[in-house]
């Protein structure tokens, strides 16, 4: 029970973190159809900006300023680079964001160096939030979960309940009509891209000190957020939310399971020895493969349900 409760809590908080990381990506993809490869780089920029701004103004102002800076950077990129290649189709768009991710990585290393930053959790959120069965639940994790939930609610309200949300949604499917009605469609796209980048930046501010702020941080989250977006359904915000929680919880519980094919075979009366063919595969414990489970989901999802859990469109 104790282990179950703590694992569930860990899984939920990890899942919410994944959602926080991938919400901006989903937003950009669903509204603009651009698969933004530089998304994880915006996440990294958010962490580094927050670290630098935080040294100067403190953490709380940085929580506001850093995502704004990243958002401005994203909007500028959309206006001066992405918009120009938009007319050539999706592949050049994808390639330009791919190139951007490398530029950001190198720039970060040139400006801040290759080492990790001493970016700490603010004193007010340091320490446990509550203690469950003798295990502390850190206050900062609670804060991260709250930020993720707020993000979800804010985006959902913005898109479905506000006028600008309606314009954004309409601009996706009927750009000419929306333009004819007097709306500046390119500016709407710029806002969406900037907004998505700002969300990634916010995730960076919050995740950078919870984990490690270093140049490799973009690469470590880059792959898993694509998994979330694909499993959830390309461009579906609620799908991304469900997929993040699912991946977080399954991965966390898998770590706790020490059984293997070897044990299963033993129960079935089969004796597998180190000389048996495929022994090294059989002795793999579920806990060992836990961190690669998300990628397994990705492949299975693409085979059996290419539109994802809650996606509406094919591919």
């Amino acid at each position, binding site marked *: 029970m*104790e*282990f179950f409760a*703590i*694992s569930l809590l*860990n*899984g939920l*908080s*990890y899942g919410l*973190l994944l959602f926080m990381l991938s919400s901006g990506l989903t937003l950009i993809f669903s509204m603009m159809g651009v698969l933004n490869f530089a998304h994880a780089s915006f996440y990294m920029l958010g962490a580094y900006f927050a670290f630098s701004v935080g040294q100067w103004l403190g953490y709380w102002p940085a929580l506001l300023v850093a995502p704004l800076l990243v958002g401005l950077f994203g909007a500028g990129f959309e206006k001066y680079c992405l918009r120009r290649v938009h007319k050539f189709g999706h592949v050049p768009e994808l390639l330009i964001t791919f190139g951007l991710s490398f530029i950001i*990585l190198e720039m970060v*290393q040139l400006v801040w160096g*290759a*080492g*990790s930053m*001493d970016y*700490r*959790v603010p004193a007010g959120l340091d320490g*446990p939030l509550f*203690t469950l069965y*003798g*295990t*502390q*639940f*850190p206050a*900062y*994790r609670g804060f991260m979960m709250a930020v993720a939930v707020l993000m979800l609610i804010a985006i959902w309200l913005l898109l479905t309940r506000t006028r600008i949300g309606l314009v954004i949604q309409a601009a996706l499917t009927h750009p000419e009509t929306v333009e004819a009605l007097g709306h500046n469609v390119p500016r709407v796209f710029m806002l969406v891209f900037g907004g998505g980048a700002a969300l990634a930046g916010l995730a960076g501010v919050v995740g950078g000190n*919870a*984990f*490690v702020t*270093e*140049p*490799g941080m973009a*690469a*470590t*989250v880059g792959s*898993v957020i694509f998994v979330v977006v694909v499993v959830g359904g390309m461009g579906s915000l609620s799908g991304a939310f469900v997929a993040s929680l699912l991946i977080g919880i399954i*991965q*966390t*519980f898998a*770590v*706790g399971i*020490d059984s293997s094919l070897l044990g299963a075979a033993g129960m079935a009366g089969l004796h597998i020895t180190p000389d048996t063919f495929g022994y090294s595969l059989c002795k793999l414990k579920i*806990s*060992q493969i*836990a*961190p*690669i489970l998300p990628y397994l989901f990705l492949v299975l999802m693409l085979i059996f349900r290419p539109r994802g859990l809650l996606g509406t469109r094919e591919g």
Partner: protein
Amino acid sequence: MTFPMKHLAMVAVFACACTAFAQQAAPAKPAATMAAGVLNGQTVRIAFMDPLSGSFASVGQNLLKSWQFAAERLSGAKNPAGVKFEVVGFDNKGSPQESLNTLKAAIDQGFRYVTQGNGSGAAAAILNAVAKHNERNPGKEVIYLNYSAVDPALTNEKCDYWHFRLDADTTMKMEALTSFMKDQPKVKSVYLLNQNYAHGHQVAKYFKEGMARKRPDVKIAGEDLHPLGQVKDFAPYVAKIKQSGADTIVTGNWGADLTLFVKALNDAGLKLPMYTYYASATGTPTALAASGGSEVYIVSYSHANHTGEIGQMRADYKKRFNDDYISYSNYNGIQLLGAAMAKAKSTDPVQVAKALEGLSVKSFAGDITMRASDHQLQMSMFISKWQKVDGKNPYSLENTGYTFAPIKQMDAYVASTPTSCQMKRPS
């Protein structure tokens, strides 16, 4: 079309001319300089290959700077041969496959000395490739200095004449660590958390073997292997450790995998004594300091508070790069190379390899000897403990106000382990 081709040809001719000139110019130098040493003014270039980008870049970059720093400090009159050392970095991205490419690039550029250390997989690939290259290209032999890949196989069943290991291998570290832990009465139940590759497997294997021999009453509460550099959130592992009821943790993790693990332990408030290999490296001291006085031990051939030349180098390194000089194997490596070149009166790898066998030099913690039978450096080992800096141990790691203070030194023979190497020497 013709213009670019012509242009290219001109560049190529120019480049050839330059190298030819450089090769001619180099031997002319010795006559001009008048310092001690038999090989005055000759330059020995060492190719350093380790991850300089990606998840483990911060460690790789630090080590590249360390090698370059040691090369600079020990060049010219500072080594008995009087040669100038030069270290150039190649990014092998930590992968065995990439290492083969960088090795080829280095050999093509005329490097005769190669060094690598992060990752035993890449180390094994380089060891094999160097052996093959040397067999097929007599007169162009390459020496491989392995400065920290600790897979015992590299000096046992896979041992090779051209490979020299400067770090203590896992069997030696575990011999030292278990010798220390057997005298710690509060160690009763141990949890092993390691990265799922050769190194992590061996830490677990040799720890269990050593403990079973020295303290059969200690039980293994649990054991986990996780993928290298993939885990973002260690909270599930911490929950599992807590569940197991272990009172001690042993881990061979390094880089972000150790830093994140320490953070997760702090977050959950689980304060268990932890025995590690690499807790003094990039990022981890900062995470340790955040939790205050955790009980953390390191087993290594060095510690953070040596005095003398190495202490001075550490201080200067800090001043220049604002970073910690975390590995001294480059110092030992360049010392050994200098001594071997003086002994061989040559910088030719064939002669130097012969001279390195059985060579002893004085280092920062007594004599070190390159054992001839398997090319494993024999040296004294230290256990050091995480504590606040004090008068005796003043070096503050990553400006945290904490340091690793030596609490036990073991002579080289204590940690020395036998080898099964059947060394094939070139005739």
